[in-house]
């Protein structure tokens, strides 16, 4: 089975009437790993949130298509059911809902009524994935993200990614706040998903994530647009030389969206 295709065309997004994305074009196909890099404040996380349908972000023009279907017409849960997944930078804490109840509800949400995952199978899968991510087993019974450390939250996002097996995974700064050991474990989980049926969009402003997860394509965002695309060598050059050479090349003085709004 071939993978899915996520197409983002001339996407404009505002928050509180302030335009953050000013025409993003990007296509992610099954089997491909894309990295979106760029300094802070250039719209990278806005792109991730807009694809998933965050209530605060308003798409003012452009389109997002998943296998030709209009994602912008879908509710957030429909986007997930269609195959999108966003590992969030700041996952919500939900008191009183255990991690495992939440995960089971999420898995069953994409299955037909009467075809729910059996409790045994679920526990087996969850145990295996938690082992793989070197997570403490009691995290299954803890309330969703409540009191989790930064690192635990990130692992928990990847646990969900591994168990929900989306067609397209978007990782919003999954590396932020992780020490090197945690980063290795999280990367191991993401690399395990590599296949023809899984496409991945990684948002980061550190090259170091890409030392563990090699991207096929690298894109640089500035001023709310993708200003440069290339292969893994682009990330290496950014690591070595920073972003100034791109700014010079493109005649950009200030890379953030703020100054140009």
């Amino acid at each position, binding site marked *: 089975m071939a993978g899915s295709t996520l197409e983002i065309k001339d996407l404009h997004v505002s928050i509180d009437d302030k335009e953050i994305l000013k025409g993003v074009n990007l296509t992610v196909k099954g089997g491909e790993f894309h990295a979106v890099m760029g300094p802070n404040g250039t719209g990278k996380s806005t792109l991730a949130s807009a694809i998933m*349908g965050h209530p605060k972000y308003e798409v003012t023009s452009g389109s997002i298509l998943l296998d030709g279907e209009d994602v912008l017409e879908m509710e957030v*849960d429909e986007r997930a059911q269609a195959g999108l997944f966003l590992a969030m930078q700041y996952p919500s804490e939900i008191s*009183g809902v255990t991690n495992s109840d939440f995960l089971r509800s999420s898995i069953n*949400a994409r299955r037909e009524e009467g075809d729910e995952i059996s409790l045994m199978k679920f526990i087996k899968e969850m145990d295996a994935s938690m082992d793989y991510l070197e997570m403490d087993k009691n995290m299954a019974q803890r309330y969703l993200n409540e009191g989790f450390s930064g690192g635990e939250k990130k692992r928990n996002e990847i646990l969900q990614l591994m168990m929900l097996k989306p067609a397209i995974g978007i990782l919003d700064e999954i590396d932020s706040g992780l020490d090197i050991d945690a980063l290795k474990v999280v990367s191991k989980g993401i690399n395990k998903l590599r296949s023809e049926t899984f496409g991945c969009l990684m948002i980061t402003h550190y090259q170091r994530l890409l030392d563990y997860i090699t991207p096929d394509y690298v894109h640089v965002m500035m001023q709310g647009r993708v200003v440069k695309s290339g292969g893994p060598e682009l990330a290496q050059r950014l690591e070595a030389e920073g972003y100034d050479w791109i700014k010079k090349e493109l005649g950009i003085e200030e890379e953030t969206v703020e100054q140009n709004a």
Partner: protein
Amino acid sequence: MTVDTKLPYEKDYVSKFSEKRNEPEWMKSLRLQALELTETLPMPKPDKTNITKWNFSKFDHDVSGQEISSLEELPEDIKVFLDMENKNGNLVIQRNESVAYKSLDASLQEKGVILTDLQSAIQEHSELVQRYFMKDAVSIDENRLTALHTALMNGGVFVYVPKNVVVEEPLQAIFWQEDPKVGSFNHVIVVAEENSSVTYVENYISHNQDEEAVANIVTEVIAHDNASVSFGAVDNFAKGTTVYVNRRGIAYRDAKIEWALGQMNDGNTASENITHLIGDNSVSQAKAVTVGRGNQIQNLTAKIVNFGLNSDGYILQHGVMKDSASSVFNGIGKIEHGASKSNAEQESRVLMLSKDARGDANPILLIDEDDVTAGHAASVGRVDPIQLYYLMSRGISKQEAERLIIHGFLAPVVNEIPIQSVKDQLTKVIEGKVN
């Protein structure tokens, strides 16, 4: 217009009611004394709620229900509260204020544990009941309703755990109002002697939608030195019943009283849950959750008073409000002079599901001592759209996401209920009320 709260019950009626039950003289005279007080005492005045027009006078008082010979005879909607597979051997079922069924493990009986209906307890353990009935915790002259309760008390349960006895299995009471008009003047006493420990869980159930009835309930929990009482309740009176429920705890030295109250009535309800931390190092946790719906009015007070040194009180109230329901949550932490090193914490949170609902969180700290710690958190708000977004981003529908958030919000009490069948029932009741 005020509704006439004067009662159709006279001295003569109360005397005869007491005589018919073969009550000892002390009980009869206490009833008559209380009846007299109803003439002069004022109604309770819950903060911010006017209950003067509520029905406290329309109900049937002298009622009875049939005994059952086996739990199998119970209707399905009562059976669900019982663990029918691993039958709980420690159980009292009251039907229209009469005992329908009771049992207590032989091993507990041998240790001197008492779990029986109050009417039998008054016969069989008269001195013990007299020692605690409306004495240390609630008094007959607090207000007109406590006096009325005493005069008309027509049911309840007596739990007694002797010194050093640890009761492992929970004790359970089911108060089933089968007749729609039955007035429940239920009185529950739980006494835990020194170094003892007990868990007690009760359910109130009625089905009266249109017929009016009254529940005027007093519960007294006494935890002697180093005793521990865990008290769980699911109140599920139907719309027609007006409820006044007064649950009071007294904790002596090193004692602990934990309340987990699922306040799921559908009618107007005034509830006060007050614990006095008398002894040094005594502890109480008072947790209560409610779901308000329809045009129900509720006033829910949780109060812990620290008298003892180093005593520790924690109040948690969570309420979900929908339709045009209106609730006031009074959380009161009071530290008396001399109770140094004490702690009074509270948290009141209200989740609003409709624009016509009302919820007031009313946190109060009254502190008469310097060397103490205290804190409160209160909030009234809607379901957080970012939490909804997070759950929905995993494919969960909006409706299911809201359901998860609401159940999570009420989990602090649901998770504390020690009998699985009762916990499941509370979850179902919540489900039924929020959807």
